[in-house]
């Protein structure tokens, strides 16, 4: 069993190629939609255009009931023409916002395409504003711009911005485990219980639910990535001494077991104890997955690139549900983080990094998959052409990690097929 050892990136039988051209993906601003719910006292202020505001609003389930903890400072022509000092304007907007929302403890200034093109220095603005509002509000910045980030990379940029704020763990500190990546609270609690039962005492999660609860990081911190899109965050944590544990991602029974085992091995948990602790979860996952296997077995699946979850999801569908993979598109392929996943994919799996939308749609139409996983913009057009689809953004909003969500994950893929079979109109 060497799944946790760093694997050379080429140890894969996958056929990996790159494509460039038109892309159909969200930008990193979209991550705000789930991050603002995860970090409960944080506010996300996009510094951008009306397009940015419209995007976040459209992605956030179209309409907002309560006043959300995100907003846009819309740059207008006065800012561009130099009639207004953009930094003074930003300070004014932030002041108004903090007056309105005194409950905010952490404010993210989120860079956008326009703010980057006009080179508005949000890092410096964040420092300035942090001094102004110290100690009530901490102000940080990151980029969610579409010229820098794709969809889930916004979370990566956000978490990476938190890393310098994390306290330094003492050199003599006992080994600790840091789980990295936003998970639903219910999933986080399940994992915390499992780690406790395994005997790993010191476990923390990034991001924490409250801005003031940032975990410590140091040379004795072991990093376990819960999400596959955290390249910059992992690099920043490694630079502060953390050691990343190579593991598959906790999707499905097998992925969850491999992920937990990477931690267990690093903390010297005896294998029989590991087997005992995980037995109930593995059994429940197996029971839950069995309900959907008939629906998904031998189904031909096509992934459009979207969230970077594609490779682990493909591994899950292929190995645990018996699906056939036609093409696994992914916006980026982090060969090192993804090595344990790629090693589990069937030989010859077509992995396509990047996108050329029209060519990819041609391939999809020609292949006539039984199930296509794609973004919201493409789903209905493909359905209208007779192809069953699963829109991928739901995979970010739904708790899908861990043993007790394995069945839910399978159900997300099975539902479109069940629905097609059900409808007679």
């Amino acid at each position: 069993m060497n799944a946790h050892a760093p694997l050379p990136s080429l140890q894969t039988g996958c056929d990996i190629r790159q494509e460039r051209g038109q892309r159909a993906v969200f930008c990193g601003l979209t991550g705000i939609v789930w991050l603002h719910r995860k970090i409960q006292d944080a506010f996300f202020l996009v510094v951008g255009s009306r397009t940015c505001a419209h995007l976040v609003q459209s992605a956030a389930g179209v309409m907002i009931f309560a006043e959300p903890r995100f907003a846009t400072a819309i740059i207008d022509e006065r800012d561009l023409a130099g009639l207004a000092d953009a930094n003074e304007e930003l300070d004014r907007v932030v002041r108004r916002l903090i007056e309105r929302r005194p409950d905010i403890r952490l404010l993210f200034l989120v860079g956008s395409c326009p703010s980057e093109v006009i080179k508005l220095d949000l890092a410096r603005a964040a420092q300035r504003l942090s001094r102004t509002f110290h100690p009530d509000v901490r102000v940080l910045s990151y980029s969610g711009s579409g010229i820098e980030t794709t969809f889930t990379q916004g979370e990566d940029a956000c978490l990476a911005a938190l890393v310098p704020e994390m306290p330094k763990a003492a050199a003599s500190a006992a080994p600790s485990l840091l789980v990295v990546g936003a998970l639903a609270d219910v999933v986080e609690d399940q994992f915390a219980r499992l780690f406790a039962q395994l005997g790993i005492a010191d476990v923390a999660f990034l991001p924490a639910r409250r801005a003031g609860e940032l975990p410590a990081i140091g040379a004795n911190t072991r990093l376990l990535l819960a999400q596959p899109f955290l390249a910059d965050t992992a690099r920043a944590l490694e630079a502060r001494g953390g050691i990343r544990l190579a593991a598959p991602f906790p999707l499905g029974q097998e992925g969850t077991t491999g992920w937990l085992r990477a931690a267990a091995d690093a903390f010297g948990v005896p294998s029989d104890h590991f087997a005992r602790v995980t037995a109930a979860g593995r059994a429940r996952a197996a029971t839950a997955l069995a309900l959907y296997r008939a629906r998904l077995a031998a189904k031909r699946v096509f992934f459009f690139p979207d969230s970077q979850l594609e490779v682990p999801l493909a591994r899950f569908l292929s190995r645990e549900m018996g699906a056939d993979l036609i093409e696994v598109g992914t916006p980026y392929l982090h060969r090192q983080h993804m090595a344990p996943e790629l090693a589990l994919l069937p030989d010859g799996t077509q992995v396509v990094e990047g996108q050329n939308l029209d060519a990819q749609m041609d391939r999809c139409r020609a292949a006539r998959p039984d199930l296509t996983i794609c973004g919201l913009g493409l789903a209905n057009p493909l359905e209208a052409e007779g192809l069953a689809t699963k829109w991928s953004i739901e995979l970010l909003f739904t708790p899908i990690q861990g043993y007790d969500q394995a069945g839910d994950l399978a159900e997300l893929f099975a539902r479109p097929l069940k629905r097609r079979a059900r409808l007679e109109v």
Partner: protein
Amino acid sequence: MQLTLWTYEGPPHIGAMRIATAMRGLHYVLHAPQGDTYADLLFTMIERRDARPPVTYTTFQARDLGADTAAIFQTAVAEAYARFRPEAMIVGASCTAELIQDDPGGLARALDLPIPVIPLELPAYQKKENWGASETLYRLVRALAGGTRTPRDERRPLCNLLGPTALGFRHRDDLVEVTKILATLGIDVNVVAPLGCTPADLGRLGAADFNVVLYPEIARAAGQHLQKIFGQPMVETVPIGVQATIRFVGEVAALAGVDPAPVLAGAPSRLPWYSRSVDSTYLTDKRVFIFGDATHALAAARIATTELGFRVVGLGTYTREFAREVRAEAALHGIEATITDDYLDVEAAIQAAQPELVLGTQMERHVAKRLGLPCAVISAPIHVQDFPARHSPQMGFEGANVLFDTWVHPLMMGLEEHLLGMFREDAEFHAEATPSHLGPGHAPPAPPAEAAGQAPPAEAGIHVAAAPASWAPDAEKELKKIPFFVRGKARTNTERFARERALPLITVETLYDAKAHFGR
């Protein structure tokens, strides 16, 4: 820089997409980064269109900025032409590409494609969605309009219908109603633009005798241009409401030289009788707050007053281009218009006006929900609910029927709630009873955590800070006997009455003194 929690309109290139997506045979190449492709979902998810919008995005990235984004744009235009073979193209930039100043028009022209390529200049940092739609339609009409009129004695009267777009609020159904009216009058429709037309169809616009502008925000500029070059008169009366529809029929019939009587005969709408029937008496002087795009807000104000007998206590629009018209209409109701695109201003205006019914957009629907007020949606921004499966026009006589139902039902629901409250002490009703339409076995819903956790700070900045006089227990009890939909107003009025008179305690007497003072 403007702090924006929620926006009524998208950027202007979304308006251009609404035109392009409405048409056939037109392709839009948009110089934009990858995130801007979110716009596809507006059309495929909200409107449930069965095809991607005819838009190619260049999706340039940061690494391209130092290199050659112009070449990326030209490649995208060339490939889009080769793949889609459109009759014509529009090209332009979104907000980010506007900053890098690649000149999409010039770059596309340099490719020398064998089709018309129309450049769009849509200033993303000044203008918004409806302006973008209007400008795009105008540019297309300017570039492509053609055709000549044949002598009238050889044919039936002919008109163009201008304005319906993709992602338009009930445009699909309005078009059906208006076409039906025209057909009954014996008027033929030459071209509907942009919904369903091709660039070649725009080349026949000149054959019509006159133009009907259904949505002035979108089609007035195009209509004015056609008036100038073809001498086509323009009907700008928007047929929303019974009277407006009758006026519309009259104007159209006059221009076409036909008799309007067949359309107006009988009772083409049920609204007038429903409004006069005695069960509608309770609608008299209902305080209504109206907010939306200019076309729908103006129509709503007129219908509310003269066709339903409401009292307009608030009127506003986010369409700044039509602020003058909306201010003038508000003046007729003795109020000042709310012209803003900041929904917090609208929320404050609603609270100040103390309406009993809100007619607004989806955002006002949420505000009304928070304030416990009945509400009906009358305008974009568009929502998946605004594309109902059934026929549900706003225009024409059937549209008037739809409006009667849509606006009156929320009030009726309120009345039912009140009756339930009145009988609350009866055996089969009790404080924990769930609404009867849910049937047995439904627990009262828990308040959503998000709303519960966030509402107080949201409202903190809006409520007028004041130290209210305290309520005597029997006064508080008396207040509960007042119908819930006027209870809030009774409470505020009484507290104001007490404050102005520096009364430390509100008694039952104070409550009724205040009622007498303020009247209904």
